[in-house]
């Protein structure tokens, strides 16, 4: 049984109105446990829209999504929260940090919702921030950090819970090429430890870290194949 299975997924914004947008127009695919998949596509091709649905943050207008065999549309609000808390780590394109909380507190938050004790979650959150190179920025507010640093806090928050599935929407969009490669190595290491990773990027080179690349255009999959670069072990 595939971990993720979507069938004929549609997402229509503002249906029936003048500004109707078909962000997804019949997407079907399957992702197995332990895969590292890149989703490639031009801006506006529907990548984030698909990711939000896969991350149980949004619901499709049409079509089915099975996560671990369970149809997601049948789950209650609380069950969805539980999935987001225990199964999925989400790195947002726009970071989505809470502005009144320090880097450390932001990274601790998913652990708070897992009812983890204070000392333990402090330790884990600190480790996660150190892994993304922010060991010296624990007490900074998002407004006191650069875009790239905020992005790395968002990454630390997603990996702190060691989720079985990690979804990353342009996780290196604001980083220089060296930092980007470091983050990619981090994702690859997590994948080797068994984490299923879905990575959104518009950068073909970065997509090379994944074993498989799905390409979207105008809300449809136009190609889905093993990554050539990855096979050759390039970069």
């Amino acid at each position, binding site marked *: 049984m595939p971990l993720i299975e979507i069938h004929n997924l549609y997402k229509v914004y503002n249906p029936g109105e003048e500004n109707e947008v078909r962000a997804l127009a019949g997407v079907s695919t399957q992702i197995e446990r332990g895969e590292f998949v890149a989703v490639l596509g031009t801006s506006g091709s529907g990548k984030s829209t698909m990711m939000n649905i896969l991350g149980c943050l949004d619901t499709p207008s049409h079509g089915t999504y099975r996560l671990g065999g369970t149809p997601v549309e049948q789950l209650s*609000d*609380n069950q969805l*929260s*539980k999935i987001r*808390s225990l199964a999925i780590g989400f790195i947002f394109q726009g970071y989505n940090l809470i502005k*009144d909380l320090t880097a450390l507190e932001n990274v601790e938050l*998913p652990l708070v*919702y897992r*009812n983890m004790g*204070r000392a333990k979650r402090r330790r884990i959150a600190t480790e996660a921030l150190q892994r993304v190179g922010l060991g010296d920025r624990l007490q900074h507010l998002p407004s006191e950090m650069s875009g790239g640093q905020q992005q790395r806090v968002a990454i630390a928050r997603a990996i702190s819970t060691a989720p079985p599935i990690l979804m990353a929407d342009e996780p290196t969009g604001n980083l220089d090429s060296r930092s980007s490669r470091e983050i990619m190595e981090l994702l690859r290491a997590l994948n080797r430890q068994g984490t299923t990773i879905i990575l959104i990027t518009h950068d073909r080179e970065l997509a090379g870290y994944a074993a498989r690349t799905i390409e979207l255009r105008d809300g449809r999959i136009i190609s889905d194949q093993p990554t050539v670069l990855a096979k050759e072990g390039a970069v």
Partner: protein
Amino acid sequence: MNIGQAFSMAIKSIRNNKARSILTMLGIIIGVAAVITLVTIIQGYQKEFIRQVSDMGTNVVQVSYYYDQRDVSRGITEKARSMPEYVQAMTPNQSNWYTVKLRDKSRDSRIIFGSEQYDICTNYNIEKGSMFTYNNVLNADRVCVIGQALKNELFNFENPIGKTVHIQGEKFRVVGVLEEKNMQWGDYYDNICIVPYTNNRLLMKNPSVSEYVIQAVDGEATKAIITEMENYFKQLLGRDWGYWIYSENQFMEFYNEQIALMSLIGGGIAGISLVVGGIGIMNIMLVSVTERTREIGIRKSIGARRFDIISQFLIESGTLSLCGGLLGILLGALLSLIFGRLIFKDLVLLPSLFIVVGAAGFSIVLGMFFGFYPANRASKLNPIDALRVE
């Protein structure tokens, strides 16, 4: 949800919006301060009243008969003695101003014509010696018990027991001295000299004894005594006027009713201001939820359940309201002190612990009650819709 975290978030957001938070709390502050001041002042009145009444003696029935010169003292005394289950003590309570002399010193004093139970009925304590006896009364002995003020004036540091004073030229032997009453009326209650009432014919031109005080065993007994005494006079006179029977207890009932009414009105006003304060909290929490829609979206997207969001906002509104409540308690304590000073001279008024704890607890509940609607609304947000809000 982690309560400590929600609590520190709440404190943070209150501090980040100081002016707004204070304005929001204002309703609660005023409401709580009003309740506290009101309750404390009412309690002050009750304390003061109980103190005054117990100075005069509690559960006392006063009987007066001024209608004609008839001597009713025998009848009243017998009537009182016939119901020992209600009556603890009784005494005539007739007084007249005469000059009391000792050698070259003298003082105008209130001479009281009483029984050997006068001290019990009017709440005096004996400092030295004793009250005169029943036999002294029967024999109309010329003995007396003097109050502190009279003792100080005539005897100074001398021991008065056994000494003889002159009243209206008659010799009276001092057998007892009363403790000081120390009430608000100067030395009115201490400048006295009690003699057996059977001396009335000796000292008074118009010797009728018209006033009596009966000490009942308890509050209920006063009612029975009043009824019995009324029956006695109705039988004696064949009509229901021409006499007067009265107990502080009746007044106390009336007084308690007045206080209950006052509490009700004041409580109503305070209650309204608390509701207004609560609505203020609800309003600001709605604003807060709107402002922080994005934050709620983030929290939900990383695993917060509806319950987590609800408890976060409830803790926040509870904390906000509690802060208002605490400030209100401080203000209320201050107002109580000030009003206490103005109304009661020698009574320091402070809210009781019970009221303080009650007010604090109530403001938390109030905040949570009015915070529930906004909190519940926040918890229902769909994560992605919440995240899209800028």
